[in-house]
């Protein structure tokens, strides 16, 4: 765990040798410039709440793509470039996990707000947070130039990666091994205009991909998106493509760059239905098997997973140095030796940690197995759809499809005079 033992108070006991007697010279004070005013946090929270309300209003009430784009730009500038990527709803998952498992960790209020408010809104209105409040989403939304359609099967399979990422992030955060979502945040270097070279390169690559493939991070990586997808499925008032009734004109079929629009279903023959039911039965039976297999596989990952933890890495390094399998020492092993702590203690701790990671690796593997199993089940269930509608798990409420819909155009034209009058 990340229990920090600061011996600041222990310094009290140290007796200091007096500085020289100067005839007339005042000792300067060490300056302690303060950081950001803490009150800004409340501003951030208020801004978040306002952003969520506005985004939901633009997506569901006004059905205004322009409003969403404008809001996304503001979010990108405010949360991205101004606040430099921290605080972030995606990263908040880790703080929350750490807070659950380590009572000594103080989770900031802003983090709680950034974790809970978007989830709450998603539960009722779908992923409007993704549409226009998340700075990462905004960057991708605004840099999508030439959308290329990705085959549905790619979405279905790669769409599982966020769940795996989520499991790993929670695992590492809860064990105090690190915040991997933050370490591998591709856009934060872009917001700060600095960062380490590898991450900047990764960011550039994702931006380039994002020119053609809509929201690559949101769709194939974002762990929060995975949770949002689940929440959004039950959202009561999700974005609809036609404002009222679908006339099945098929104009919106290709409108979505994120592959979220599902066409109406066609009726099946009884034979097909029977086959489908049998298949579903098989998939349901397969799911527990996958969980067991996943658990087993995850269990074998104890060593690689535990190596993410600094304590284990250090113990491993010390052992290598002891065995003479590596040349020289590193700062961390030197620092450890200088503390005078017996190495055995470190090894005991590291072995205990590894055992813990074996257990947690099993859990992670089981989770991945469960996710895959559920996906297979999900892909085998047929739901009836009468009109073109967005898949709530995939739809980020970006509002692109609105203008494709002739019904929408109709309403717009009807509303035009009133709008002009009201000066919009």
């Amino acid at each position, binding site marked *: 765990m990340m229990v920090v033992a600061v011996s600041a108070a222990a310094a009290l006991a140290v007796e200091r*040798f007096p500085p020289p007697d100067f005839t007339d010279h005042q000792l300067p004070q060490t300056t302690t410039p303060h950081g950001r005013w803490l009150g800004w946090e409340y501003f951030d929270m208020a801004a978040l709440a306002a952003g969520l309300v506005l985004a939901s209003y633009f997506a569901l009430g006004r059905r205004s793509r322009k409003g969403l784009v404008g809001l996304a730009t503001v979010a990108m500038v405010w949360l991205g470039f101004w606040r430099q990527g921290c605080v972030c709803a995606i990263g908040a998952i880790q703080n929350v996990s750490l807070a659950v498992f380590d009572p000594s960790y103080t989770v900031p209020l802003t983090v709680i707000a950034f974790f809970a408010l978007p989830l709450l809104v998603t539960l009722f209105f779908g992923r409007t947070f993704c549409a226009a409040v998340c700075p990462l989403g905004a960057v991708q939304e605004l840099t999508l130039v030439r959308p290329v359609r990705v085959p549905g099967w790619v979405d279905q399979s790669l769409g599982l990666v966020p769940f795996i990422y989520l499991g790993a992030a929670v695992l590492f955060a809860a064990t105090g091994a690190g915040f991997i979502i933050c370490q591998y945040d591709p856009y934060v270097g872009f917001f700060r205009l600095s960062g380490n070279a590898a991450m900047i390169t*990764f960011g550039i690559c994702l931006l380039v991909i994002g020119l053609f493939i809509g929201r690559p991070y949101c769709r194939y990586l974002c762990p929060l998106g995975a949770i949002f997808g689940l929440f959004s499925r039950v959202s009561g008032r999700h974005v609809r493509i036609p404002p009222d009734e679908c006339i099945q004109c098929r104009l919106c079929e290709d409108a979505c760059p994120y592959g979220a629009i599902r066409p109406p279903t066609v009726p099946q023959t009884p034979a097909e239905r029977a086959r489908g039911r049998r298949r579903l039965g098989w998939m349901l039976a397969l799911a527990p098997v996958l969980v067991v297999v996943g658990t087993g596989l995850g269990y074998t990952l104890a060593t690689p997973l535990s190596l993410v933890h600094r304590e284990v890495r250090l113990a491993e390094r010390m052992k290598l140095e002891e065995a003479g399998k590596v040349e020289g020492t590193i700062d961390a092993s030197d620092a450890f030796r*200088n503390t005078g702590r017996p190495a055995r203690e470190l090894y005991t701790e590291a072995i205990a940690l590894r055992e813990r990671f074996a257990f947690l690796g099993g859990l992670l593997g089981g989770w991945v197995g469960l996710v895959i199993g559920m996906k297979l089940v999900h892909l085998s269930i047929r739901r009836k759809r009468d009109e073109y509608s967005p898949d709530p798990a995939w739809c980020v409420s970006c509002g692109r499809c609105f203008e494709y819909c002739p019904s929408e155009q109709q309403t717009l034209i009807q509303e035009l005079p009133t709008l002009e009058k009201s000066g919009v």
Partner: protein
Amino acid sequence: MIGIAVVLAVAIGAVAVSRVPRSGDAGSGLPQRFDYDLKTHKTIDPALILYRQAGELPLDLSASRAVAVGPEDRIYVAGDQKILVFDREGTRRSEIALESEPRCLAVGGAGNKEPGRIYVGMRDHVEVYGPDGTRQAVWERLGEKAVLTSIAVADSADEHDIFAADAGHRVVHRYDPSGKRLAEIGRRNREQKIRGFIIPSPYFDLAVTADGLLRVVNPGMHRIEAYTFDGHFEEPLVWGKASLEIEGFCGCCNPANMAAMPGGGYVTAEKGIPRVKIYGADGNFVGVVAGPDVLAPTATITEETREDHKLEVVDVAADSRGRILVLDPAARKVRIFVARNPQMETKS
């Protein structure tokens, strides 16, 4: 075209992600000019090492402060809240409990009026104990600022005064055996060409040499100064220079400790790069007793930040047989060194 771009970006991105540093194990990557390297100065030419360790006395002290030699070469170690007494063979003889933490001590030698009388320097005062360990006197307190770091006793037939080095006031106090403070020595004085003691840290040692002079370390100037007991500065007898080289004193302020050798000459102990060296009576470098390889086996310890910034500084003493006693607080022991070449003992 787009496909190629995407695939390329995915590939580069994957490589980039795999290269993200997950720990600082690779080091800071700063150029060589940013290294602070004392390695070359820590290795000592083996030919210069004239002593070898012949034994050691383990100490059950969590903080040991000073070592001294008394009559019959008894060894006295002060630390925690006690003084441990060993005989010349290293057998523990007795233990004197103290009421506060000692900083330094000196023992009346065989030539003294009261041989075996123990003078213990606490932070701000001196306490006197009889050879049997009974407390005989507590001398006046020297005030808030005082930090006593060393005591020496004059052993000649007609002089029995006691000198205490006060690092806080940056001066040496002279006492008579009854504890009366007679004078202060070494205060800055332009006429007498006394620059004053420059003491940046609480290491300030002195010794009485056989020639009847008081030798005081001026650590900030990296030299050993000579004073008569009356406080007259003997400028020509000053010796010592600042250098990382083996014949000089390293760092900002050294030597930290010093003792007079029986046949004339000095043994000095430095902090920073812990090394114990022998100098002749006129300050010429003779050789090395022990270096960092013995006294700081954890190679990097000295350059790195330490808890509370407590430097483990060694103290030294020499007995009548020319053995050198090195108090190694980090290892919690007194190391006993003897000359490799028996001729050395008489020569130096």
